[in-house]
């Protein structure tokens, strides 16, 4: 069989073209989305007919982007979604069914039924995914169902034997088993279940327990559930969900322990860490989606923190009520470790960031804003924190708009516009400026958003037309 394998091979062979360009098993390039490949499949014959593209070049594109596999991939995704939805419904049904207590069965029989059902589902999952004549979508759904069964079984074993325990222990146990299964199968939905369970284990524990070091170990554990998995399997949703979970868990620790160091030094350092990780991933091969997720979450995290710290009353309240004893000990230590880690990754990311002109200003802004906020925090000046935050938001908003234009990316442009508009609205609402002033400012801001937005969209259209031609 030739490079194109089936229909494409025949199509181009009829035109007298048949030379292999790439290995038949080579996956399409990672940035080639299904929508892009579909468009390419539709346009290739037109371009060949117009004479824009030679037949051999068209065949090369056909092979490189595996256009023959498109139909099967789309069907596979549909079936996988259907199977996962079905498996989730069955899992919920089983949980509710068994939660009804089964009073008529002895404990040993209940245990046998529950374990047997779980093992059967896992056996079917393995067979359908890996045995000859496989049905990977259905197998994946069975693996997901197995992990849901495992979680339900933890609650049900407790019920059968009247074992009382904390939600943290229950969800932690579920996360342990689900993580092992996620790594064994490489199944992203199972990894998502593991992440949700791990985050619940964290969140159900007393927020203000006081043991910051233990909480930081848990945050690290949460990261280890998802980050290596996402890296090996190039899973953008798992990566993004992990970073989000880590950020929220970190924030819970900072707020629960009233730690200024964690809130105003550790949190921005975490944002820088995410952003720098994204820059590093962008410089490497094949993880563009993960890189974007890291950079967006990093910038968004720092922006949210700056926004919160832009309220003088809030900052004064935090500084006056915070537990300084805790700050100077474990909170400060944990924040220092986060800062050191962020610094290491940021240094590693500096070279690729400097090389890419379109992200250089954003990287420089992050590299200046984060230490600035830390310095203001260390000085203990609430006014300094507030001014740095407001100034930082203005700069960040402007740089995001510039980055959006330079990279022709709507997310950057509109993110920056939203940030600046939100800042303007907030400050005018926060301070007593008079209704006339407020009205004029809001109208001016609205007109600016509409005008510049229309200009940007026009610019994008022109650029895309020029790329296409």
């Amino acid at each position, binding site marked *: 069989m030739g490079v194109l394998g089936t229909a494409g091979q025949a199509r181009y062979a009829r035109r007298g073209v048949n030379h292999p360009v790439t290995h038949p098993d080579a996956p399409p390039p990672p940035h080639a989305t299904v929508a892009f490949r579909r468009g390419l499949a539709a346009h290739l014959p037109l371009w060949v007919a117009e004479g824009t593209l030679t037949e051999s070049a068209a065949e090369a594109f056909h092979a490189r982007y595996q256009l023959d596999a498109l139909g099967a991939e789309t069907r596979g995704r549909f079936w996988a979604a259907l199977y996962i939805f079905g498996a989730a419904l069955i899992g919920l049904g089983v949980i509710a069914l068994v939660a009804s*207590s089964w009073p008529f069965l002895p404990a040993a029989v209940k245990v046998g039924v529950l374990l047997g059902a779980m093992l059967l589902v896992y056996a079917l999952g393995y067979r359908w995914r890996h045995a000859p004549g496989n049905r990977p979508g259905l197998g994946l759904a069975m693996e997901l169902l197995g992990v849901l069964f*495992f979680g339900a079984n933890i*609650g049900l*074993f407790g019920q059968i*034997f009247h*074992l009382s325990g904390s939600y943290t222990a229950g969800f932690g146990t579920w996360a342990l088993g689900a993580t092992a299964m996620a790594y064994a199968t490489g199944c992203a939905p199972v990894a998502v279940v593991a992440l949700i369970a791990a985050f619940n284990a964290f969140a159900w524990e007393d927020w203000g327990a006081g043991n910051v070091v233990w909480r930081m170990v848990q945050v690290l554990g949460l990261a280890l559930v998802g980050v290596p998995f996402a890296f090996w399997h190039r899973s953008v949703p798992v990566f993004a969900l992990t970073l989000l979970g880590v950020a929220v868990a970190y924030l819970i620790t900072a707020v629960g322990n009233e730690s200024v160091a964690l809130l105003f030094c550790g949190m921005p350092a975490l944002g820088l860490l995410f952003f720098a990780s994204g820059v590093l991933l962008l410089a490497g091969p094949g993880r563009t989606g993960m890189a974007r997720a890291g950079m967006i979450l990093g910038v968004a995290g720092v922006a949210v923190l700056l926004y919160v710290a832009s309220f003088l009353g809030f900052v004064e309240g935090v500084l006056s009520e915070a537990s300084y004893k805790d700050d100077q000990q474990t909170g400060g230590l944990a924040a220092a470790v986060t800062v050191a880690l962020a610094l290491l990754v940021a240094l590693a990311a500096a070279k690729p960031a400097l090389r890419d002109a379109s992200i250089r200003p954003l990287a420089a802004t992050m590299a200046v804003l984060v230490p600035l906020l830390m310095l203001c925090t260390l000085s203990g000046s609430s006014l300094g924190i507030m001014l740095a935050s407001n100034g930082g938001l203005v700069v960040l908003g402007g740089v995001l708009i510039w980055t959006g234009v330079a990279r022709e990316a709507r997310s950057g442009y509109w993110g920056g516009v939203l940030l600046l508009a939100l800042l303007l609205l907030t400050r005018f609402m926060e301070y007593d400026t008079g209704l006339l002033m407020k009205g004029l400012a809001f109208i001016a801001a609205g007109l600016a958003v509409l005008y510049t937005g229309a200009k940007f969209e026009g610019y994008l259209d022109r650029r895309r037309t020029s790329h296409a031609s």
Partner: protein
Amino acid sequence: MLRNRAVWYALAVALQVVVLLAMPWQKYDALIDGAEVQLRVQPYDPMTFLSGRYASLQYEVAGLSDDLGLLNLAEGEPLYCVLRPEADGLWARVSMSSQFPTLEPGQRLLLGYKERGRAIFGIESFFLPEEDAMGIEEKLRNRGSDCRALVLVDDAGRALLSGLMIDGVRYEPGQ
């Protein structure tokens, strides 16, 4: 490659099975050889989606007071509660300490740990059978009811909740 995958898959499944079996295994001795003690409890009845209806039990013997000198103990530290039988079938607390005690004939040990100013024995939840749940909840809400937990205790003090007795009626589902 396929073989490796199968091995990792089997290990992950085995881990889950071991974790599940370890849950009741801790209470195996109490289940097989445990002696029954009856302890007075004050229940209330919450519900969770995962586990259905259950009565949360507060044991009379679990309270810690200043005179026991245990309130300054760190959370999670072990507590040893010595019980002796009373005339009405209930068991009463003789002592509570953080040191392993010496038992006199007829006494039983209940092993717990400190949590939020009380001793926790791991037997604080009683899951109600669905068809009896309404009736039991009604009795539990009646302040005058005589509510006792039926607890199996092994020689090491590990306890397993086997049922409830409310006004002399025993509820022991599925054991």
